[in-house]
């Protein structure tokens, strides 16, 4: 397998009136071709910013302060916007949370699909674009695709709209899809269908997938690797199975045991992580999780732990509990 994406020590700041706010504090991860990675965290952890920075779509006042993003060996984080447009929506596609906000309500699905193709493939004829659009709608299992192309977004249900978004993201045969909470707005039965579809398409076309979500259940069913984020940092990463079965970082442990489906009798109190995620303006010194951590050591409030290989060598963890002394 070749390396599709490489993110190195990425720092993303937001320039605000009272100074810079650090949304991403030095995160690194890799993605092999055809691999599915889950970025998990609660709101404010920086998982969406991480996803957006991959496609160089951090809008002002945000900017990449440090670090690089390499896509297919090229440092795309240095690309000017003009050049980035050849990659974004072409080699890397995005799927966003709310399918109603993503589709233009006054254009038919067909127009929106062919428009995308013609923008990225200047020489292509309209007829050829329509043929590809039809083919992609078929791939996402939309019944009677030819008639559907002539319809407007409001004529589709939420699940159908998200299928269309996926079809649009497939138009240019991308190597990587970044999906930001793709099923949060959908119901469970529809969510299961959409996640199945995404997995099936990724496997069929050996596409990479970065799945950004707060739902550990969805991640554990869809992805091969997982990175858990907290307050702008990756605190633990590794194979999904290993991290879910054997979480090492106290935050990951807390997150998993806070799930209502975690083992235990019904009617019993759930394990809870005390406190809330710190505001980005006041991230505590040292390990940003230490005020909420039940196993905090004196060193945790002074020194930020680095993301290092865990003792078993199965993944990475950023916690003083696992540092060899």
């Amino acid at each position, binding site marked *: 397998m070749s390396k599709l994406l490489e993110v190195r020590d990425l720092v993303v700041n937001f320039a605000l009136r009272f100074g810079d706010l650090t949304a991403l504090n030095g995160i690194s991860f890799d993605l092999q071709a055809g691999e599915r990675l889950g970025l998990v965290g*609660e*709101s404010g952890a920086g998982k969406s910013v991480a996803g957006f920075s991959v496609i160089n779509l951090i809008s002002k006042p945000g900017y990449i302060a440090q670090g690089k993003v390499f896509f297919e060996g090229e440092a795309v984080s240095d690309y000017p916007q003009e050049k980035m447009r050849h990659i974004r929506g072409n080699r890397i596609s995005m799927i966003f949370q709310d399918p109603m906000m993503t589709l233009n309500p006054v254009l038919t699905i067909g127009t929106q699909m062919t428009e995308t193709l013609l923008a990225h493939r200047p020489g292509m004829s309209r007829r050829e674009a329509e043929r590809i659009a039809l083919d992609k709608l078929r791939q996402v299992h939309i019944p009677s695709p030819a008639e559907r192309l002539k319809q407007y977004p409001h004529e589709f*249900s939420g*699940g*159908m709209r998200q299928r269309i978004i996926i079809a649009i993201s497939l138009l240019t045969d991308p190597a990587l899809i970044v999906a930001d909470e793709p099923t949060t707005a959908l*119901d*469970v*039965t*529809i*969510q*299961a*269908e959409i*996640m*199945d579809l995404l*997995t099936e398409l990724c496997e069929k076309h050996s596409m990479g997938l970065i799945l950004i979500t*707060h*739902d*550990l*259940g*969805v991640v*554990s*069913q*869809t992805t091969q690797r997982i990175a858990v984020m907290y307050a702008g940092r990756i605190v633990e990463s590794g194979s*999904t*199975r290993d991290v*879910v*079965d054997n979480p090492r970082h106290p935050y990951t442990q*807390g*997150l*998993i045991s*806070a*799930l*209502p*489906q*975690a083992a*235990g009798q*019904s*009617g019993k*109190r*759930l*394990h*809870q*992580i005390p406190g*809330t*995620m710190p505001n980005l303006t006041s991230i505590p010194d040292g390990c940003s999780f230490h005020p909420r951590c039940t196993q905090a050591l004196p060193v945790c409030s002074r020194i930020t732990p680095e993301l290092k290989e865990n003792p078993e060598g199965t993944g990475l963890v950023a916690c003083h509990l696992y540092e060899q002394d």
Partner: protein
Amino acid sequence: MQEKISMSVDKVLRVENLVRHFDISGGFLDQLKFRDRRLTRVKTIVKALNNVRFSIFPGETFSVVGESGCGKSTLGRTVVGLHPPNSGKIFYKGERIDNLNAKEMLPYRQKMQMVFQDPYASLNPRMTVQQILREPVVFHNPDMPGKQVRERVARIMDQVGVDPAWSFRYPHEFSGGQRQRISIARALMVNPEFIVADEPISALDVSIQAQILNLLMDAQEEHGLTYMFITHDLAVVERFSTRVAVMYLGTLCEVARTADLFSSPRHPYTQALMSAIPRLGRAGSKHIKLRGEVPTPIDLPSGCVFSGRCPHVRERCLREAPQLMDMEDGTLVACHGVEEKRI
């Protein structure tokens, strides 16, 4: 045995053949449509609840699950009297309450409280926490001395885990989880017996969800509350509830004790729903795939509402709507297939 005992206890709430329709046709001109070159007047009716019946026993947590648009929120709101039902009866501890006027309803409003989904929208941004929590007490007990009200505010705030010293702050100064605590405090202020919680945790992060669920369980124990818990999150339901009602398109499919529902779902829709729960560490698990999408509650299918997506559909299902039947273990199921013993 357990079931027999609880059957003999007075039900907190009993609902019979509840129907709630919403007319969304708009003004007279909006209702005019051309059909076969003729101008006709068409009314658009959303059939949110169709012949719903169930009972809730004291001290239990009765969950209502279903996908968006299935009418579960409408059910909660109708039960506490926020919407009048089109037909059907609602009994609170044996007293019929759906036909009461606003004044007669007052004592029941104190006993039945509601916690809403969005803690950002359900707290008045221009009132301090103190004012928000005082209002229901003062409204229902106009003679209560101010000192007693203040003490009560402080006590309840303490109980839900919000520092009473913050009672002069405004809702925007609190995080989502804390706001939901304040919503719960507001419901607890008037000593209710029955609380309808409409998706109280779905707007919150996972670690905060656990805090709020624990708070709800503690409050239930302390005040002897009965909950009607409306949610789409099946994992929460499994953990938290005594009995579960599964809703689909304004109709109840199945009502069962939680353990029974999760170990042996009877209705085909319940079975599909159970298999779709994203579970930890069960990668690539097979779930039952349903055909198509949920129809709109405007054009309900004739016969069984689930017939269009059901893998076990037969001709009878398209013709005749199944009624809820009592099974031997106390479960209620509305399905021809189960009745004919082929599912």
